[in-house]
């Protein structure tokens, strides 16, 4: 590693390394960032939840949206897998069904970024973990 010769150097290094702990920073204050829970039970995985999750993670990161993406167990909507629960800061959680890549993109573009509702919301009748 080269020497840090100036304050500018230090700031540059900070920016480089900050991504390393971004996930930790965000999970330390989940209520202040976008929280996404992906149902990753057998049913979810079988319907492509893993791909959905990977897509969401990389897309949010790509767009520099502070978010915490976690996996959770079966939410009980096996008919609608993959399902995800999105909680925007200060809002109630919203559950979406049949979230494939395209749907995920729409959710991010409309709901996460602009707070517009998107089709496919599953009425919440129980509190997820």
């Amino acid at each position, binding site marked *: *590693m080269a*020497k*840090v*010769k*100036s*304050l500018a*150097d*230090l700031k540059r*290094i*900070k920016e480089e*390394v*900050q*991504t*390393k*702990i971004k*996930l*930790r920073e*965000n*999970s*330390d204050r*989940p209520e202040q960032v976008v929280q996404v829970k992906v149902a*990753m*039970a057998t049913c979810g995985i079988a319907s492509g939840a893993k791909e959905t999750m*990977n897509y969401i*993670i*990389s897309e949010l*990161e790509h767009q520099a949206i502070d978010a*915490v*993406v*976690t*996996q*959770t*167990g079966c939410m009980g909507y096996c008919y609608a897998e993959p399902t995800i629960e999105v909680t925007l800061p200060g809002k109630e959680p919203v559950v979406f069904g049949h979230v494939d890549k395209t749907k995920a993109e729409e959710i991010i573009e409309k709901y996460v970024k602009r707070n517009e509702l998107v089709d496919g919301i599953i009425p919440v009748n129980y509190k997820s*973990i």
Partner: protein
Amino acid sequence: MADYKMHIMVCGGSGCRASESDKLTQNLDTALQKNGLEEDVQVVTTGCFGFCEKGPVVKILPDNTFYTQVTPEDAEKIVEEHIIKGRQIKHLLYEDPNAKELIPDSKHMDFYKKQVRLALRNCGFINPENIDEYIARDGYAAIGKCLSEMTPEAVIEEIKESGLRGRGGGGFPTGLKWDITRKSEADQKYVVCNADEGDPGAFMDRSILEGDPHTIIEAMAICGYCIGADKGLVYIRAEYPLAIERLKIALDQAREYGLLGEDILGTGFNFDIELKYGAGAFVCGEETALIHSMEGLRGEPTFKPPFPSVSGYNEKPTNVNNVETFANIPVIINKGAGFFSQIGTGSSKGTKVFALAGKINNVGLIEVPMGTTLREVIFDIGGGIKDGKKFKAVQTGGPSGGCLTEAHLDTPIDFDNLIKVGSMMGSGGMIVMDEDDCMVAVAKFYLEFTLDESCGKCSPCRVGNKRLYEILDKITQGKGTKEDLDKLRLLGNVVKDTSLCGLGQTSPNPILSTLDNFYDEYLAHVEDSKCVAGQCKALMQYKIIPDACSGCTLCFRNCPVGAISGERKSPHFIDQSICIKCGVCYEKCKFDAIEIV
């Protein structure tokens, strides 16, 4: 760089390491590799999480799942169940001792809810052996800001404004100390970090050094800039091998980055740090004794003035601050004096780290805003008293402090309040006692510690503490008199009034405060030969309840001194003049026929 989707934070503090957390880390890495997840999940060895009661502790991010008492064997399950399948492992979750329910993540733990972590901000959050992670958390930004935007006077002004007071026990205003050292003229000055933590049960400084060594390095450099010193020394006890190792790694990294050494950040400021090892003498926490020890002399205090700020190491102006004090400095510089001073009480700003110990559910390391009450610390954060017993007292300030009671539970903790109620902040040891603790024995315990740790230089501490101890011992032996209680108070006050250094000036505090708060208990020892807590063996009697005794002869056969007599199938009898109170009969009896009175 791998793009990790999950981080497994494994506590690498001394406590968790002692329970094989390093092996756990290895096993986690192996399990991840086995499942091809090494690119997705990062295992991070961190400093202390503070929740030492149930170590080793593992926290999984981003979901904040908090696993306790994790063994190396649990690694595979964590990967296969939690990481792969997203299922929490129930038996590793923390169970709230009061509500008796499993807590899914650290955000819901009472232990963490009331904490505000400034000094411990990076402990459990970053890998202390990785300078990049420190930098990512605004590390070295404070020294950068000081060197490029602030004059030394302005930095000192900021520290003064923050209201930061020394966390080692004295509570001296840090900014003022820096100012005095700055104004002492000399060709050479020194910054000393006092890492000679010695209170029984205290490990605040060790945890900071193990969990966030760079913060100390950065703060010392800032101090050096302010006072005009290019040399720093960390006086650390050799009994802290892990802290030493991490500090050494951090020093090497900082030097490699040019954040220590010459021309730091191109500003022409030079600063480097040397480690000095202590042999673990409590008195060397006293700054003049510490300096003498660093100079290769006998570790004993000398009269102040001159204060180290004027004449310290090698008779040069020396600024001595404690580890925790330093840990607050970068926060103050980065976030401003205003941010810091809004936390805390009128005279005590910021937070304080405490090592919770004793009869408390959540033994560990906590950091709370000044002004938090003892009740919140003990019952909310600490989870209350173990085994549902009754709270009796809490000792703050270690062997220099005092025992506080139920009546003081709602006292907001700060420097002045604790002194007002007859104790002191000290460096942050907090030992909780329950109904089974005898307060005379507690006072004796602390005095025994001071007795061992006194340097022997001044007569009141050398001989006075010995005499105090002898009187306490006499009382616990059931041979004390009421006159002895007066003697304790009289002599205790003289020892306080005449001793040379802080050690002797405070060593009678545990006695005086227990005399104040638990006089009846002392009185019971000397007048009724009773130890209500049942701790003082000499005052206990084992008696056989004739109605319950079946005459099985088990006690009779096991008594090592032949104190028990009686015929088979008829009630036995213990001869008190022979009984040595070993308790064997009590343990052996199958009919609960032996009572302790």
